[in-house]
């Protein structure tokens, strides 16, 4: 059942279009992540769902009800802000109780709900403290606690982990995932961090410059990116791109030319051969983790610039005359800078994009 529906939502500030028509649906209980680079409009979109920003045009539905112009409080959504936005003059208890007090709930119920939320988030010992006496991670938990006490229909998260250090971030990420499972609530989460997006999301919405680039599950986006932007954005380290040219097409066999390829040529058996023509520019995408070092059947012939050992794996930075290439390999290959390096790849892991950047 569709729980959240955005229908051609647009947002303009004066003449500047920030959101240029976003349509999208989410099921009840789904965890949706909006991801994209800074300035892509993901936070604006979230704030429009919350009702904190006016919608310029389009329609917004929550739980079957149109709420495009509804007051924020009446939408029954809660939001965790990037800055946490805790009320600094109130104790943790009062911070969490504020929304319930506004809803004029009886005192006993307020107490029970706040204590329940505090138990889930392990905040019981901190209820009397003021926000300034809390660590970053604790403040984050209070902010989440404040959003869960009211049992909203929809949880919104605006880059909630970006102010935390790396270790705390991964810890809180796991906690948010657990919370989602425990509450079974619909959540919309905004981040620019593709790792957060990949690990938390049931479905990812990739945004760029106010437009949706692709919507899909994390594995769909990873396996079948719709364009070079999504391909480059999802996955770490970033996908390698080689701007090659089609040398010949024979049936479903496609030959591509580029100096980086071993022998200057890459021959592939692919249905995409039918969708391009000789002489056309084709971008070849190769994920660093799919590249294998010095195996038979080399695809790329390169010179090693340098290698970074990550302990269990090694990141290789190599180049030919053309583009730099990054490869990620298990173990510690015995290579020095300046060594010749050949990289192979399973042909099913080769991505092809046309001149406009769309997947072939």
């Amino acid at each position, binding site marked *: 059942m569709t729980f959240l529906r955005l229908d051609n939502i647009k947002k303009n500030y004066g003449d500047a279009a920030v959101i240029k028509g976003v349509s999208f649906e989410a099921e009840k209980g789904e965890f949706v992540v909006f991801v994209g680079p800074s300035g892509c409009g993901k936070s604006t979109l979230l704030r429009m769902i919350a009702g*904190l920003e006016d919608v310029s045009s389009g329609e917004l539905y929550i739980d079957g009800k149109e709420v495009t112009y509804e007051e924020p*409080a009446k939408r029954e959504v809660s*939001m965790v802000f990037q800055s946490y936005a805790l*009320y*600094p003059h109130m104790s943790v208890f009062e911070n969490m109780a504020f929304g319930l007090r*506004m809803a004029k709930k009886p005192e006993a119920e307020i107490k029970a709900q706040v204590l329940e939320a505090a138990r889930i988030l392990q905040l019981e010992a901190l209820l009397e403290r003021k*926000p300034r006496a809390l660590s970053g991670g604790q403040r984050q938990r209070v902010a989440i606690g404040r959003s869960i006490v009211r049992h909203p229909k929809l949880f919104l998260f605006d880059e909630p982990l970006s102010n935390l250090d790396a270790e705390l971030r991964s810890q809180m990420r796991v906690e948010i995932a657990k919370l989602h499972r425990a509450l079974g609530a619909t959540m919309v989460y905004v981040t620019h961090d593709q790792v957060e997006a990949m690990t938390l999301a049931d479905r990812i919405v990739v945004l760029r410059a106010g437009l949706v680039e692709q919507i899909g599950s994390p594995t769909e986006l990873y396996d079948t990116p719709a364009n070079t932007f999504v391909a480059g954005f999802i996955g770490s380290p970033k996908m390698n791109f080689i701007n090659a040219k089609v040398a010949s097409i024979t049936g479903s066999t496609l030959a591509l030319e580029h100096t980086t390829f071993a022998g200057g040529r890459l021959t592939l058996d692919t249905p995409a051969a039918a969708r391009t023509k000789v002489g056309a520019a084709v971008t070849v995408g190769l994920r660093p983790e799919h590249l294998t070092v010095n195996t038979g059947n080399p695809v790329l012939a390169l010179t090693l610039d340098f290698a970074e050992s990550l302990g269990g794996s090694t990141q290789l930075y190599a180049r030919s005359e053309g583009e730099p290439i990054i490869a990620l390999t298990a173990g510690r290959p015995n290579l020095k800078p300046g060594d010749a390096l050949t990289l192979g790849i399973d042909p099913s892991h080769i991505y092809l994009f046309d001149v406009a950047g769309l997947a072939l």
Partner: protein
Amino acid sequence: MRISSGKLLHALGLTAVVIFTLFPFFWMVSASFKTQADILSSPPVWFFTPTLQNYAEIFADTKVSGAIINSLIVATCSTLLAVILGAPAAFALARYEFRGKSDLWFWFISNRMISPIVLALPVYLLAIQTGLLDTHLVLILIYLTFQLPIVVWIVTDQFKSIPADLEQAARLDGADQFTIFRKIYLPLGAPGIAVSAIFSFIFSWNELLYALVLTRRAVQTAPVVATSFMSGYELPWGKIMATGTVIVLPVTIFALIVSRHMVRGLTMGATK
């Protein structure tokens, strides 16, 4: 320990400033304990037998105690009104966009650009026409016009420093604008409101020009009474200085007490 010449100069400069600002105050307080003869002696007398005669005289005079009560009424009422009216105005200026906002803002500031003496005559005529001359109300109203810009100015700035996320979090929590103002902005803006209230109070407590022009007998304020001793053929410096001390003391103590509570950074911990 070696003290660098720069530090020494700095200390000397500071000492000069302190003496410059505190000497008149010292002169007033010490003179209030002197006899008229000691005050007028030349060269000045630095060591003298203190006398409470001046204080006894001014407190025996109901004019002085009445004037202090008048001052209290006028200063307290005008300060309260300035805060009650100014804080919501500051909230609007800090948080909403509306047409004419910058003009309104400029108008508030421009009120402070006019020399008060320029308006003294028109205000006097207005007071006569409306029958408000020599009432508490006329002083409260005229002081309000000077205090409101101070309050609006300081409190707007304070409110602007409160993160907008807090207001939005409260909106999502179901708070209406008035609740947001009362539960979020007032407590967090308290330091700024306190500062503006102190400035307002001190302004109306010390104000002389309009108090002189707009009062006769009934509502003379303390500064007016202090200067009223100067009329006639003698200048009772001891009484004038004693009255001055009595006027200055309450605000000084008040300011010292509240200054410790004017701790900024109440918003620390709200964000990040």
